[in-house]
């Protein structure tokens, strides 16, 4: 047999005037615009499209649509493309997958000779011994894996996403779906109609009946004139909580695929029915196709599917005989399944059907068209929590009790004439619109920004649709022979029966053991046949066995579409352009892009220690606090006392969680009578803000405090070093900068370089004389440049995060989250004077009160014996030559100031005494000696420079 192109068909979707050229396994082919990859190949006489997973049997067209498991191909760098759906494009490079060495001659087909050994789950039963050989076995097994190839160097593509809030989403644009959309729209609803195929119309698209063609034309016309938003080649991929729908749009002009996230008030599910294969010996031989496939090939793409056909049919709709005859195919026999007739097997070469055995009689034919029945793709309903109910009379599953916000129509709901289906669709659309109106009213009435709604909420519309009738359909799943059930997984009915005998007889266990329904169509073709065979094995009916759970997505979605455009917010200080213009190496700290250094961090430190350095510390968390009850708030949040902080003073504080674990630290200054500025660590700013709000809103709503995050309202610049007073004096004229006039841990309002509304405080994270200037951010760059200019003769230079980290380590200041961890309680910091248990309740007090009896590790300064050895942060402190862990190094650097390695670490409490000797296990495996210092500061322990 070979398929070939027919003359023009009235229903065809191809544009014969436009020829497209493409390659298939390296050879040149052509097709027409409107062809799918598969229809173009079929029209060119190709029969074999792929090889099966386990046995490498040749596979041809089965369903000729998106779900066809035999039509998975590679297109360029795009693997697993569905050739039954993907439209042909000029220049496409299409290749068969899972073939070795070639599609025509596949050596792995030898597998089929040993098929009897490759029973279900065979791999669980072998390759256990010898253990060392398993990796080799594994490589061989994985070489048999299905699927195409990714090119890891594929260029980045542009993807996109959007949100939408329609009243009604209709999934499926067959006649019922279109009518539902139109009726809902007419009733005033905003409607989104989503069609999986390239055009609307459902099965009417490939119907040659005149009345159906007329109906389709009218429906299309009405739809175009309506307000309904129509998306074709798009799929509702999932229904999540509260009608949150994922929709993938595959034909958007600006993106390869676009994900639409719709919060629909109502969802109408109208996907139609999927024709299911029939199970018999040789049912996967090329030349066996479904009736819908035959009709699609003939009527949509003008492809003649064979020369001489046997038609097996169990329903009127699936009767392709008329279409076949119309296309000039010789119909050798029509076998009617409703009358008890059966297909027993196909005969022929490995590559094609040559004969069909029906009721024991061989009929010569190169084509077998099968219409066994339907699978209802209830996936979207299942995702809504509905368990479909099986109806033996109609031989398929039906929705049973979907939530109120989901309605089904079309073939999913029942049978009927075209008019009956359209009537049901329209009634469903009206019902959906009425309910959407209630929902909209409810949402609008509760949303502060929305327009006020008048009147009472409309009544919830009752479902008074006339149900669609259900036609009798024979339960045709398997003939008296065995055959393939899952084409993509190469699982046959024999495998399922064997699995059931072994005890894997529930549908979930059988699925896992045999992998039936786990392939490319995710059960849309295989589920009912799988369940039917299990029912046979268990002596039960299909309803009792039940189905597996259908999971999202309904159709596969590319990772690119799911990712969409990259939203990774970054924050920058107003001074960032200066940093970039001056050779900065940035570092990402949380969302902040910060200067790490400008080339030589050690030199930056030396300059700051001997002259003056400036660092952009804008990310420092800043909360503006206003109100009379701030001292109460500070007393609650910090472990130390805050009642007596005078205006103009600054104090350091540490915050703990309710479990006594250190949460954050920073200084808070009193700018005015009822006005404070709290600072937090850069990384803790957001957490602390929410934490403060939580205490104020839930525990202390009576306190009068207003909290405003002002982190980026101020550009913050720390001026550090012995010459910092001189430098600051050149840009600040309205503050007395003498040590007496502006002492350590004090705050002043100031005008800096002509910028009013600044404040500054004298603190010293670096351990040097330093001023931290906070200037309105819209003038941050101006002030920074003014400092650089004014300090040129003082040797002013910028320093970055790395320089600051070195200097703070020299000074022995710990960093929350680096030197502390998720279990570090406040006493471990050694700052016991800051933990005032005599103060009435503060956060963390109970646990801190009881912590005295616990052996808490302590943060200590450590100096390795060898001054040039810097242990990596994270290295362990161990007992002598043993593997017993006594602590770890949390921070370490080479100090440019002291010219030796310095560390902070956590150690067992016994070792937290100045002079203790410890052993540090280096990453290299060497063990070195080190000494615990008597205080945290390696540099200027008396704090003379700081306070000077």
């Amino acid at each position, binding site marked *: 047999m070979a398929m070939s192109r027919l003359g023009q068909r009235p229903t065809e979707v191809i544009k014969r005037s436009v020829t497209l050229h493409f390659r298939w396994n390296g050879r040149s082919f052509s097709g027409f615009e409107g062809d799918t990859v598969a229809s173009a190949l079929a029209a060119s006489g190709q029969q074999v499209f792929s090889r099966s997973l386990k046995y490498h049997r040749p596979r041809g067209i089965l369903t000729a649509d998106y779900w066809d498991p035999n039509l998975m191909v590679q297109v360029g760098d795009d693997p697993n493309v569905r050739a039954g759906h993907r439209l042909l494009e000029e220049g496409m490079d299409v290749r068969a997958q899972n073939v070795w060495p070639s599609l025509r001659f596949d050596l792995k087909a030898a597998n089929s000779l040993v098929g009897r050994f490759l029973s279900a789950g065979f791999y669980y039963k072998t390759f256990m011994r010898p253990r060392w050989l398993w990796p080799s076995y594994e490589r061989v097994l994985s070489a048999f894996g299905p699927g195409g190839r990714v090119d890891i160097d594929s260029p980045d593509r542009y993807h996109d996403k959007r949100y939408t809030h329609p009243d009604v989403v209709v999934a499926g644009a067959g006649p019922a779906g279109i009518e539902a959309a139109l009726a809902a729209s007419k009733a005033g609803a905003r409607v989104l109609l989503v069609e999986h195929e390239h055009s609307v119309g459902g099965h009417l698209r490939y119907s040659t009946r005149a009345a159906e063609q007329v109906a389709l034309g009218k429906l299309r016309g009405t739809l175009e004139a309506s307000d309904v938003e129509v998306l074709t080649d798009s799929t509702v991929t999932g229904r999540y909580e*509260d009608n949150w729908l994922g929709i993938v749009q595959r034909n958007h002009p600006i993106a390869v695929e676009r994900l639409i996230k719709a*919060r629909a008030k*109502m969802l109408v599910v109208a996907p139609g029915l999927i024709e299911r294969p029939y199970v018999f010996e040789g049912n996967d031989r090329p030349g066996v196709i479904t009736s819908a496939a035959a009709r699609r090939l003939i009527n949509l793409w003008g492809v003649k599917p064979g020369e001489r056909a046997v038609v097996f049919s169990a329903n009127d709709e699936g009767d392709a005989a008329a279409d076949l005859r119309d296309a000039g195919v010789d119909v050798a026999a029509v076998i009617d399944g409703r009358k008890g007739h059966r297909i027993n097997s196909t005969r022929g070469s490995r590559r094609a059907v040559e004969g069909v055995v029906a009721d024991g009689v061989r009929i010569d034919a190169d084509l077998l068209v099968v219409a066994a029945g339907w699978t209802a793709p209830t996936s979207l309903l299942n995702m809504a929590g509905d368990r479909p109910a099986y109806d033996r009379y109609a031989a398929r599953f039906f929705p049973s009790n979907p939530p109120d916000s989901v309605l089904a129509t079309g073939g999913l709901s029942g049978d009927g004439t075209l008019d009956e289906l359209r009537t049901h669709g329209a009634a469903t659309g009206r019902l959906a619109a009425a309910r959407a109106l209630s929902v909209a009213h409810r949402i609008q009435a*509760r949303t502060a920004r929305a327009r006020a709604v008048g009147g009472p909420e409309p009544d919830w519309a009752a479902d008074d649709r006339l149900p669609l009738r259900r036609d009798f359909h024979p339960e045709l799943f398997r003939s008296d022979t065995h055959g393939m059930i899952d084409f993509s997984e190469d699982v046959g009915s024999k495998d399922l029966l064997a699995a059931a005998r072994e005890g894997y007889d529930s549908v979930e266990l059988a699925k896992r053991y045999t992998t039936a329904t786990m392939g490319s169509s995710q059960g849309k073709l295989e589920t009912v046949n799988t369940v039917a065979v299990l029912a046979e094995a268990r002596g039960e009916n299909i309803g009792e066995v039940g189905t597996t759970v259908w999971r999202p997505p309904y159709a596969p979605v590319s990772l690119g579409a799911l990712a969409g455009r990259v939203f990774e917010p970054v924050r920058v200080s107003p001074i960032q352009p200066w940093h970039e213009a001056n050779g900065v190496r940035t570092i990402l700290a949380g969302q902040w892009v910060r200067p790490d250094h400008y080339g030589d961090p050690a030199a930056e430190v030396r300059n700051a220690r001997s002259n003056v350095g400036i660092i952009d510390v804008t990310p420092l968390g800043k909360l503006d606090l206003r109100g009379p009850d701030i001292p109460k708030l500070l007393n609650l949040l910090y472990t130390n006392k805050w009642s007596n902080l005078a205006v103009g003073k600054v104090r350091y504080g540490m915050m703990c969680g309710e479990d006594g674990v250190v949460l954050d630290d920073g200084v808070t200054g009193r700018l005015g009578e009822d006005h404070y500025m709290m600072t937090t660590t850069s990384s803790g700013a957001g957490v602390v803000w*929410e934490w403060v709000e939580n205490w104020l809103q*839930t525990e202390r709503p009576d306190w009068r405090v207003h909290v405003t995050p002002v982190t980026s309202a101020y550009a913050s610049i720390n001026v550090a070093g012995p010459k910092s007073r001189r430098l600051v004096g050149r840009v600040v004229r309205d503050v007395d900068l003498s040590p007496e006039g502006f002492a350590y841990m004090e705050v002043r309002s100031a005008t800096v370089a002509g910028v009013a509304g600044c404040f500054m405080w004298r603190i010293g994270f670096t351990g040097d004389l330093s001023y931290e200037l906070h200037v309105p951010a819209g003038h941050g760059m101006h002030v920074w440049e003014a400092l650089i200019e004014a300090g040129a003769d003082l040797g002013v230079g910028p320093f970055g995060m790395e320089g600051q980290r070195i200097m703070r380590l020299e000074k022995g200041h710990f960093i929350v989250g680096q030197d502390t961890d998720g279990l570090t309680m406040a006493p471990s910091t050694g700052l016991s004077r800051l933990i005032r248990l005599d103060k009435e*309740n503060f956060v963390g007090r109970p646990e801190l009160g009881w912590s005295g009896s616990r052996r808490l590790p302590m943060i200590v300064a450590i100096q390795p014996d060898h001054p040039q050895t810097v242990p990596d942060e994270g290295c362990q402190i161990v007992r002598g030559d043993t593997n017993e862990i006594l602590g770890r190094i949390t921070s370490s650097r080479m100090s440019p100031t002291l010219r030796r390695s310095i560390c902070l670490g956590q150690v067992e409490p016994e070792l937290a005494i100045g002079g203790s000797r410890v052993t540090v296990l280096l990453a290299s495996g060497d063990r070195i000696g080190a000494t615990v210092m008597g205080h945290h500061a390696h540099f200027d322990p008396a704090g003379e420079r700081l306070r000077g």
Partner: protein
Amino acid sequence: MLLVPCPNCGPRNSADLRYGGESHARPDPATASPHEWRAYLYLRHNPAGWLRETWYCRSGCRRWFALERNTATNEFRDPPLPGDKRGGAA
């Protein structure tokens, strides 16, 4: 995406809020025994059913509030949400 009925903003996506977990009374820190305090810190009822819990509308009104939710079905009680209810009228 769960729709959370913020009492100020109206129904909002759960991603707009921070989940605060089971609401439970804080014992008086001045008098609580270690046993009571740690039960408060760590132990949870974690029922499969109605639960009173706290939320923070971080993208919206920035208020902490309590709601009742059925942890088996994710349905909110008072005010009920649009859709997703079974068995007819609101």
